[in-house]
């Protein structure tokens, strides 16, 4: 292995690519060669570097300097000044981002994202160097039984990170006995404002494969599917590369580490349907059908893919599994809250200074997330509220800033953690306009199978559209709630059931805005 005195990490993800990361990388390699530095300084492609909306990012080690918005024309200066002479180029330097807060218990809480932006996600060797497949090896080596593995996950208190927060160990234990079973990783990330799973897929795909292997070992499945959104081209390519490398190394497709346990993973590419994020729709879609949700029960743990027992877990959930197995349940419980141990990965965006991906301990209040991690509201404006959990999530207002955020804390506020998207709104944001956008989304994404959702989403969109356009009438707000409540009671799946969430919360915190829109229109009439 070649030793280098310095490393330049370049963030290659969807955003980096669209900002021209490949051109910058080529220019950098050329400039290093011209300056005879190619042997001394190594250029490494990595995943997300933790900042979004800032163009091409370079991270220079061992100095720990982060450059943002790098263009091809800047490369010569970085090489000449920084890499040759050791003087960082200050004009490109990103002010040291307020780093991930040390959290409530005073530990650095990077569990899920620990390797993202650190390793080359296309290299199995680098993943192994930072511990990939070690948990699986431990399980085999120490003869840990599937039942013991499930117990350990139960003890860790890990809860599903896809939105519902169901205890993962319990879900695994509910998998019915059978000869043939499946593990499905839900990477059909469609909740507006959410892209955490994409960055895990792009940044540390081997972590996910190992998480699926462990899930397969625990429940007795030998086949896993990752269902990835059709729009996520880079995620699909990186994941396929990781699967190929793991197969070649004998980690997939053969008795792993000399044991009898055989597991393999295949990618399934989605085709544009939000509802397929619902686990039974996703299963229907893998089977090659319309992604209509199934009636539950039976749950997938009993009757899942091809009517066999199936475990469906979210990307972030599975990414938590290997470190729990490696370090033990007690270690995991050292992070987060009593009922929601561990960390949560959030995407923070909207009117915020540093939009991006962050990982903080469960229970971290919204204020810390927005002010410490996100650098506060943009342009010095006041915080009005936030939409948490995407379209199927809920609005919160300034009163909620100091409440601990975890599955239970948010439930007390009639909100949900959901997918972990935090859309920050400044004082000028219009909640009426936003709710119109959200209900348009529901109407568009309703799959049409059950009548309450199909007709309900249309009625909701028509009403909010009229209110927004100044044609609202007294009683409209009550009717919105009435329709959405009926949908909550009668819809087949969480899509129709959750339209009430943004409506009720918007009215709870910002009712005045809706009323003044309506009274203005009534006044004109």
């Amino acid at each position, binding site marked *: 292995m070649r030793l280098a005195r310095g490393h330049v990490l370049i963030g290659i993800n*969807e*955003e980096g*690519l*669209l*900002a021209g990361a490949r051109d910058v990388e080529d220019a950098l390699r050329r400039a290093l060669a011209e300056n005879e530095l190619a042997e001394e300084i190594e250029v490494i492609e990595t995943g997300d570097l933790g900042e*979004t*909306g800032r163009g091409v990012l370079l991270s220079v080690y061992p100095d720990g300097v982060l450059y943002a918005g790098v263009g091809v024309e800047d490369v010569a200066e970085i090489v000449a000044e920084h890499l040759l002479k050791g003087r960082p180029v200050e004009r490109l330097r990103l002010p040291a981002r307020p780093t991930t807060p040390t959290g409530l218990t005073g530990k650095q809480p990077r569990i899920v994202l620990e390797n993202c932006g650190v390793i080359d996600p296309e290299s199995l060797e680098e993943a192994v160097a930072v511990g990939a497949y070690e948990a699986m090896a431990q399980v085999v080596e120490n003869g840990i039984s599937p039942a013991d593995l499930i117990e350990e996950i139960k003890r860790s208190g890990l809860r599903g990170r896809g939105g519902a927060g169901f205890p993962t160990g319990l879900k695994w234990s509910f998998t019915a006995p059978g000869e043939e079973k499946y593990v499905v990783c839900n990477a059909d*990330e*469609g*909740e*507006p*404002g*959410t*892209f955490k799973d*994409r960055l895990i897929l792009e940044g540390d795909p081997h972590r996910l494969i190992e998480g699926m292997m462990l899930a397969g070992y625990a429940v007795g499945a030998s086949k896993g599917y990752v269902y990835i*959104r*059709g*729009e*996520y*081209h880079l995620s699909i390519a990186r994941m396929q590369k990781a699967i190929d490398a793991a197969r070649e190394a004998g980690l997939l497709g053969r008795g792993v580490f000399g044991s009898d346990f055989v597991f393999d993973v295949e990618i*399934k*590419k*989605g*085709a*544009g*349907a*939000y509802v397929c994020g619902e686990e039974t729709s996703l299963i229907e*879609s*893998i*089977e*090659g*059908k*319309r*992604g209509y949700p199934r009636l539950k029960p039976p749950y997938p743990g009993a009757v899942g893919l091809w009517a066999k027992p199936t475990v469906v877990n979210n990307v972030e959930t599975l990414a938590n599994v290997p470190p729990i197995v490696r370090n033990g349940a007690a270690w995991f419980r050292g992070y987060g809250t009593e009922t929601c141990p561990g960390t949560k990965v959030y*995407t923070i*965006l*909207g*009117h915020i200074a540093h*939009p*991006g991906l962050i990982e903080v301990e469960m229970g971290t209040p919204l204020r810390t997330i927005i002010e410490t991690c996100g650098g506060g509201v943009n342009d010095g404006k006041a915080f009005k509220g936030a*939409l948490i959990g*995407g*379209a199927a999530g809920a609005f919160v207002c300034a009163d909620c800033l100091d409440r601990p955020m975890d599955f239970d804390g948010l439930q007390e506020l009639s909100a949900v953690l959901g997918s972990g*998207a935090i*859309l920050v*709104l400044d004082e000028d*944001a219009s909640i009426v*306009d*936003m709710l119109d*956008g*959200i209900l*348009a*989304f529901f109407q*568009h*994404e309703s*799959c049409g199978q059950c009548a309450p959702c199909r007709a309900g989403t249309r009625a909701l969109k028509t009403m909010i559209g009229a209110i927004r356009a100044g044609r609202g009438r007294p009683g409209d707000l009550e009717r919105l709630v009435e329709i959405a409540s009926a949908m909550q009671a009668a819809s087949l799946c969480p899509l129709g059931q959750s339209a009430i969430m943004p409506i009720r919360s918007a009215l709870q915190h910002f009712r005045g805005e809706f009323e003044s829109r309506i009274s203005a229109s009534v006044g004109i009439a």
Partner: protein
Amino acid sequence: MRSLLEKYPRSTEHLLDMLHDLQAAEPRNYLTRDALRAVADYLSLPLSSLVSTATFYSMYSLKPRGRHIIRICESPPCQIVGAESLIDLLQEHLGVGVDETTDDGAFTLETSSCLGVCGVAPAMMVDEELYGNLTPARVVDVIEDVRRQDAAG
């Protein structure tokens, strides 16, 4: 068509992949009746069941589309930074409505749910390329760039 299908075992598990491949092989970016018929034969399914599946997913089209597909995100994170006015601008610039194709067959304008690149909102995709931090000027530039590349062949 047959050779595209024969890459896959005859199982409905690969149906979505087959539809993706056949659509990509068609210059006008849609599933022809022949393509659906070929998949139906290959998997021994009735044609109607193929139509049923294909019409469910927004990435498939049963009508000819443009050589390039514009998917502009209209979800809340893009909405709050001006996506709606960009959709209006695109309609005006291209002279088509949403889900319509320009007369020269170059572009189909579609709206999309969240593209997952909200850090650079507002965002759109043209075919497989992503474009973020869109402004009215940049939207027009992107379209005209694609036009120029087409003209250059």
